[in-house]
C-alpha cells in the first residue's frame, strides 16, 4: 500500500441534507490531513442554513457523473451520500464504468446521512450493502446491520461507527445550555406535516404557545434549503402566518416570529429550546446542549423517521407545555438513547480513516 498517511478522497452527494452532511465530513477529513474533493450538482443554491460547512471548491458533478468520470481513478476511495436507491445506482454505474475502462474499482463508502432507526434503517442498509465500507452512527445501527446479515452466506461489508458526524459543532452532550434568550426555535420541515390542514393546525398550536408564554419568543425557522420555489415558500408556515396577520388582524401574537434565510446557526445559538417534528437539524441543537422537544402532536409516522425519537425522553405535545417553568426545566435527551445513536463517539474521523486504510491494505494484498 501507498505509505502516505494522507488519503485522497472524493466525496459526492445528492439531496439537500446529504450535501450538507457531505460538506461537514469533507471539512473534518481535510482537518485530519486528507486531500478531499467534493462533487455535487447543487452548486447554484444560494442560501441556506446548512452550507457553511465546506469551504473548499466543489466539482459541479452529480454522483452518476462522478461514477463514469475518470476522476475516480485518481483517488483512494469514494464516499457517496445520497438516498439509498441512488447509492445502489451509483455503485452499479461505477462498477460498470470500471469494467468498460478495464481498471479496478476503488472502494466505495457510504451510510445514512442522519441516524435512522427501525424500518427506514433496515431499508437503507439493505440498499447500501454492496459498498465496501458502511458508515454507521452508533451501536444501534451496528446491531441492526448484524441482524440483517447474520444468516447471509456472504460476509457482511466492513462497517465503522462514526458518531453524529454530520453535526459540525463540537459535541457538548448533556451540558446545559446557557440560555441567552427566552426563545424556542421551531425547526420547520417542508414535508411534515404534509397537508395544508395539518400545517394550519401546527401554526395554531405555535400561536397558542406564544399566547401562553408572552415573555418568550417563538421563532419558526423555515427549511429554506428545501423551499426551492416561491410556491414552496407560500405553503410554508411563514406565509401562513403572514396571511393570518393580514387577513385575521390581531389574532397572531407578535412574539411568534420567523427566522431568516441562513439564520439557523445564529437562532440556535440564542435559543433556550428547539422543537421539531423530525428535522435532522435537531441534531445541531442536541450538539449545542439545547433542550429539544420532539413534537408528538401529529402522531407517529414510520416514513417520517418518527421512530428516531422513541426512547429519547423528549417526545411531548405542544399543548402539554403550559408554563415557563416547564420550559426552563426541560430534561436533556435520555443518555442511553444518545449512546445508542452514537452520541458518545467523538473520534469518528480517526475511526473512518483507520477503516479506510484497512480496506485499502486488504485490497492491495
Amino acid at each position: 500500500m501507498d505509505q502516505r498517511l494522507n488519503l485522497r478522497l472524493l466525496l459526492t452527494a445528492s439531496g439537500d441534507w446529504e450535501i450538507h452532511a457531505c460538506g461537514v465530513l469533507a471539512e473534518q477529513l481535510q482537518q485530519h490531513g486528507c486531500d478531499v474533493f467534493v462533487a455535487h450538482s447543487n452548486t447554484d443554491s444560494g442560501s441556506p442554513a446548512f452550507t457553511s460547512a465546506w469551504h473548499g471548491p466543489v466539482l459541479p458533478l452529480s454522483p452518476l457523473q462522478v461514477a463514469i468520470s475518470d476522476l475516480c481513478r485518481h483517488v483512494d476511495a469514494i464516499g457517496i451520500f445520497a438516498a439509498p436507491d441512488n447509492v445502489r445506482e451509483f455503485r452499479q454505474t461505477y462498477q460498470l464504468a470500471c469494467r468498460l475502462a478495464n481498471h479496478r474499482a476503488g472502494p466505495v463508502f457510504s451510510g445514512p446521512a442522519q441516524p435512522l432507526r427501525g424500518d427506514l434503517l433496515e431499508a437503507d442498509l439493505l440498499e447500501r450493502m454492496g459498498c465496501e465500507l458502511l458508515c454507521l452512527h452508533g451501536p444501534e445501527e451496528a446491531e441492526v446491520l448484524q441482524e440483517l446479515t447474520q444468516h447471509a452466506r456472504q460476509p457482511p461489508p466492513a462497517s465503522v461507527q462514526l458518531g453524529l458526524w454530520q453535526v459540525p459543532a463540537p459535541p457538548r452532550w448533556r451540558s446545559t445550555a446557557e440560555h441567552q434568550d427566552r426563545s424556542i426555535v421551531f425547526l420547520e420541515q417542508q414535508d411534515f406535516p404534509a397537508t395544508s390542514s395539518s400545517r394550519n393546525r401546527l401554526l395554531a398550536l405555535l400561536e397558542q404557545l406564544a399566547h401562553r408564554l408572552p415573555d418568550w419568543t417563538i421563532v419558526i425557522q423555515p427549511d429554506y434549503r428545501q423551499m426551492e420555489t416561491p410556491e414552496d415558500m407560500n405553503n410554508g408556515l411563514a406565509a401562513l402566518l403572514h396571511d393570518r396577520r393580514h387577513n385575521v388582524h390581531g389574532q397572531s401574537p407578535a412574539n411568534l416570529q420567523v427566522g431568516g434565510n441562513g439564520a439557523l446557526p445564529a437562532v440556535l445559538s440564542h435559543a433556550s429550546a428547539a422543537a421539531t417534528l423530525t428535522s435532522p437539524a435537531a441534531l445541531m441543537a442536541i450538539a449545542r446542549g439545547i433542550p429539544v422537544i420532539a413534537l408528538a402532536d401529529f402522531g407517529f409516522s414510520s416514513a417520517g423517521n418518527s421512530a428516531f425519537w422513541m426512547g429519547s425522553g423528549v417526545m411531548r405535545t405542544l399543548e402539554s407545555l403550559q408554563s415557563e417553568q416547564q420550559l426552563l426545566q426541560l430534561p436533556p435527551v435520555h443518555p442511553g438513547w444518545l449512546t445508542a445513536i452514537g452520541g458518545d463517539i467523538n473520534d469518528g474521523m480517526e475511526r473512518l480513516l483507520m477503516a479506510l486504510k484497512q480496506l485499502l491494505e486488504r485490497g492491495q494484498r
Partner: protein
Amino acid sequence: MNDTLRVLLIGDTDSQLRYCRVLSQVPADMNVQITLNAVPRDGTPESLLAQLAEVGTVWQLPLDRLLTQAAMATFDAIGVFLTGSKIAAFRKQYKQACQRRDIVPAVLFCGFNGVVLENFEEGITWRLGYDLICLNGPRDQQRLRRFLRHTPFAAQAVALTGLRRVRSAAMPSSDWAQRARRLVFAEQVLMPRTATDRYQMIRTLADLAHRSPAWQICVKPRVRPEERTFHAGQEHITQTIEKALGKTPANMVISYQPIAELLRDSRLMGTISSTAVFDALDLGCRPLVIADFGCQNENGTSFFKDSGLLHCLGHYQSLDELEGQLSSPDPRWLHWVGYDPQYNPGVLYSQIRNILAHPTAVPSLDIPGYHITQIVCDGPNNHGAALNQLRMAAEEAIRKRRWQEAEVMLQKAQRLRPENRNINRRLKAVRSKSVMLRSVRLALSQRYQPRTQE
C-alpha cells in the same frame, strides 16, 4: 385442568379473520373457549365464515354494537385484529365502556397478521396500551425491544405465536412422488408493486410454463374477482393475465381452490413475498421466493433475503431444473422469523393466564417525554379520511411541482384504493420523466377535489 379461558377474537378483513382462525386452533387441554366476531363487511367470503364456525362461536356484530353487548363482560381476554387506527380506537372505546358499566376490563391483546413487511414501528405505536402484543418470532421481538428500550413501554408483554398456520392434524401425508408436478403461484394483490412488474411476472411464469410442458403452473388469485380485501387489487390477476398474455399456455391455469388444498398435493409453490411460504412448508410443498425483480424492500422480497429460498425463474431452463436445485430453507432463518414449533398460539393463552394471575398496569401513553399520540378517527370510515388526506397532499405537491412527493402520496393512496382509476392516472402522470408528457397526462386526469358530503 385450568379453568376455562373465555376469549373473544375480533377481526374485520378476510386476512385478519384467517389469522383469528389460526389463533383459535389450540389443543383441547388448554381449555380455551373461543368466540369470534367477524365485523360485517362486504366481500367477506362465506366459506371463511363457515371455517370460523368450525373453531368457535361466530358473531357478526359491528364494533359499536359489540361494545354494548352484556356478554362482553364474560370474556377473560379480548383479541383485536383490525387495521392500525381501529385497534387504538377499539381500546379507547372498550375501556370507556368498562368504566361506564363499572366492570373490570378483560386482558386486551392484539397482533400482526402474517409477516410484517413494512411500518413495523408505526404498527407498534397503534398497539401500545394493549396488555399483550402477539408477534411472529424472535426477529419481531428483537425489533420491538429495540424500539421500546429506554421508554416506559420497555416491559411490554409479547407472545410469540409463530408463523405456522396449519394444525398438525391437517399435515399432509402424501408421498412426494404422488404430488402433482405443479407450481402453485400464490398471488398477492400488491406485490410486485408496479403494474409493469406484474405484467412481467405473468410473462415470466408463462415462459416457464412453455419451457416445462410436463408441469402445470397454477395461479392462485388472492381473492375472487367479486371479492374485496383490504388490499384490493389495481386490477384482478385474471385481467393481468389476459392483457399480458393474450393466449395463456395450456399448462398454466387459474384456480380458486383453497390454497391449502393446492399446496397439499403440489410439489412447488412460488411467491414474491407472501406468508403462504409458511403454509407451503406446513403442507410439505417446497416454497421458493421469486427474485426476478431483485431482492427489494419495496416488494417485500428482502424479508426472505437469507432464507435460502430466493430464485430467479428466468434463469432456469425448466421447472425440472429448478426443482433439482431447490434447497431447504435455512433453519436458523426459519427460527429467527418465527417458523418453529415453539412459537404457537398456545403461547398466547399461557401468557394471558399469566397476566390474569399477575395483573400489571400498562403505562399510559401521555407520559411526558414519551408521549404517543394515536390519532383516532372515530367515524366509520377511517380509510376514507386517510385517503382524502393523501390525495389532497398529492394535489398540493403537484401544484408545487414536487413530483417525488406527489408520487409518494399517490402511491400510498393507490394502496388504499388501488382500483381508483384517477389515482392511477395521476400517479402515472407524476411519474412521467418527460415534462411535456407529464403536463399532458396531468391535464387529462382529473384534479382531486374533496367532496364536502360523501
